[in-house]
């Protein structure tokens, strides 16, 4: 039983891990750190590694470089990683919970619902405080998620996904109509935000994203035991004593909250929630919590890589992260679907 397992004990508590999985996750974390460090050095003004280290450790660096690093690059990088982790966690837990490899709240209308509500509010009152956006976005995301769940109630996983597509098309049409009927002046900020841009990243949005991720993440990880039992089938889960619908509902609510939160700080970023969990499945087998952690790190990697490439490849023009992410993510998704084409749980 404990072959290939590591056991950590602390008093009465103990954690078991497969060492291969631990190794894989550590590798991912290291990769993420390296990428973040590299992202700090590149940009319209190149800052070499030594200066970055000096800034981090000794806090003594020329005022310009310190400003660039501290006020522009660092918050942007943090926000990219947070948004990626949020979307990936939401996608991973939804895919696991609904046992549907294509379920991803940001694909199934939740993202569009949140965007729709936030844009409506932006157009009504452009001066809305940033912290209010996640609340409004959550309302919109929940409304969209509920609509999908209600319409496809009792239907097969396949109908569920397709209904989600339909609802998200409908909502994005509403969004276009809303934007077309708005005044040009209030349109500017809405459009900038919609494209999934990290350009406006500051520490305040980082704080908002971090709070949401920590809150929703802890709920999801706390309920992970129930989610895992759920996966064994309803009968087993009931016999083993997990409540039927409460934990499931809270988990899915948290997934919606994560998507709404990321939408409200960085706008529309597609594909992360769908592909990160699938990439995580190529790693050595691990528990649900391990899978979730790995997915989060892969999501963070994806968004950070997309954003950094987007702001460096065509410099001085910056591609919004949403666009570079789609350019990276869509081929990855196609590749994944191709590689796993005979795993029926994905496409049926």
């Amino acid at each position: 039983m404990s072959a290939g397992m590591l056991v950590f004990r602390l008093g009465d508590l103990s954690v078991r891990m497969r060492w291969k999985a631990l190794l894989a996750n550590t590798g991912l974390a290291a990769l993420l750190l390296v990428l973040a460090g590299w992202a700090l050095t590149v940009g319209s003004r190149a800052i070499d590694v030594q200066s970055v280290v000096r800034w981090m450790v000794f806090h003594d660096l020329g005022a310009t470089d310190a400003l660039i690093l501290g006020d522009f690059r660092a918050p942007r990088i943090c926000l990219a990683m947070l948004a990626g982790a949020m979307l990936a966690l939401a996608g991973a837990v939804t895919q696991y919970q609904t046992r549907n490899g294509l379920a991803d709240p940001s694909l199934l209308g939740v993202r569009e619902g949140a965007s729709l509500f936030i844009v409506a509010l932006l157009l009504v009152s452009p001066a809305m405080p940033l912290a209010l956006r996640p609340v409004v976005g959550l309302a919109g995301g929940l409304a969209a998620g509920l609509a999908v769940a209600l319409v496809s109630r009792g239907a097969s996983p396949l109908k569920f996904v397709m209904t989600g597509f339909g609802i998200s098309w409908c909502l994005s049409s509403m969004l276009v109509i809303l934007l077309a009927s708005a005044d040009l002046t209030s349109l500017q900020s809405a459009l900038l935000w919609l494209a999934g841009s990290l350009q406006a990243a500051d520490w305040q949005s980082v704080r908002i994203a971090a709070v949401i991720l920590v809150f929703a993440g802890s709920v999801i990880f706390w309920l992970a035991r129930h989610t895992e039992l759920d996966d064994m089938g309803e009968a087993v889960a009931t016999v083993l004593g997990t409540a039927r619908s409460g934990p499931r509902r809270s988990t899915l609510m948290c997934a919606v909250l994560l998507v709404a939160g990321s939408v409200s700080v960085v706008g529309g970023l597609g594909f992360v929630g769908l592909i990160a969990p699938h990439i995580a499945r190529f790693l050595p087998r691990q528990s649900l919590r391990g899978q979730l952690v790995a997915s989060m790190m892969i999501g963070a990697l994806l968004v950070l890589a997309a954003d950094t490439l987007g702001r460096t490849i065509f410099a001085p023009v910056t591609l919004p992260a949403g666009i570079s992410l789609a350019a990276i993510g869509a081929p990855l998704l196609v590749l994944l679907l191709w590689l796993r084409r005979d795993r029926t749980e994905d496409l049926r």
Partner: protein
Amino acid sequence: MTPVQGAGGGAHKASLTLALGFVAVLFGLHVLQGPRNVPLETFPALLFDRSPASFDQFVILHLRLPRILAVVMAGACLGAAGFLLQTAMRNRLGEPHILGLNAGASLAVVVLTAFPLIPLPVAAKPFAASLGAFLLFGAVLALSAGGRDRFSPVRVIFFGIALSAMANALVSAILILDEDTLEQLRFWLLGDSAGVQMSAIAAAAPTVVIGLVGAALVMPRLAALSLGDNLARGLGASVKRTRLIALLMAALLSGSAVSLIGPIGFVGLVAPALWPRLHNKPSVAALLLVTLSGAGLLLAADSLAAGILAPRELPTGALTGLVGAPVFIWLVLRTLR
């Protein structure tokens, strides 16, 4: 079987008259609609007493007629393309927007506008758009052909969505990097019919005619296909070639529609769904009916888009999406397992 089909023919006639009547009424309403009130006397004058000095005549001839013609042509193309895709793939959810043809056509147009390698005549735009549609849809088909469950509706739709997203990301990237192209194509990309010129209509006319005639010619073979691949082979139809021709025609038709008024979704889904009895019963009459319905639907959507918030115009593509997406959901719930 025979009496039912006879009755179907009669019903077709009634439906065709109905659809034609609708298109005519919508056409008339759309001509009269607009910020300027054009008196009815202008219309006989247009026929018998043409005068370049009359502003009313100018409005009708150069502003409203091109727009309405473009909308009718695009709607007809989209309806026919949807019907072709649905019957050739036996998939009621087939539609140029969902399966990626629209995205491929837009990408082709945007690439040609942004990187004019060779000075391309206006007349070549519909062909280029059709080629883009065909290439992207070909990729979708190639990807969904592997493994078990080949060409299952879900798989085709999923690859269509993924590749559309990729093409759209490329389009956005090009537009962000190249502001001139953005200015030229901004409204067109949302599916916008205002400002269509007669030259664009003339350029699209050949592909539209080829596509519609080709679709009509392939209908009998598609009818054989609808009996099942094996039976069709027994009847002497070449299954692969029939499918290829049908999909080529669908690409031509959606390419012409996109080159006329931009990527517009769901007309090709709703037009055949209006006539549930046509499902998997391809015939020339059915094609005609669906083509007319597509034209009528897009006319209605365009008229609404121009009228709801007048003087402000909404993008026509947004309205078709708003109506079409619920129809998609309804079809999903009815047809999928």
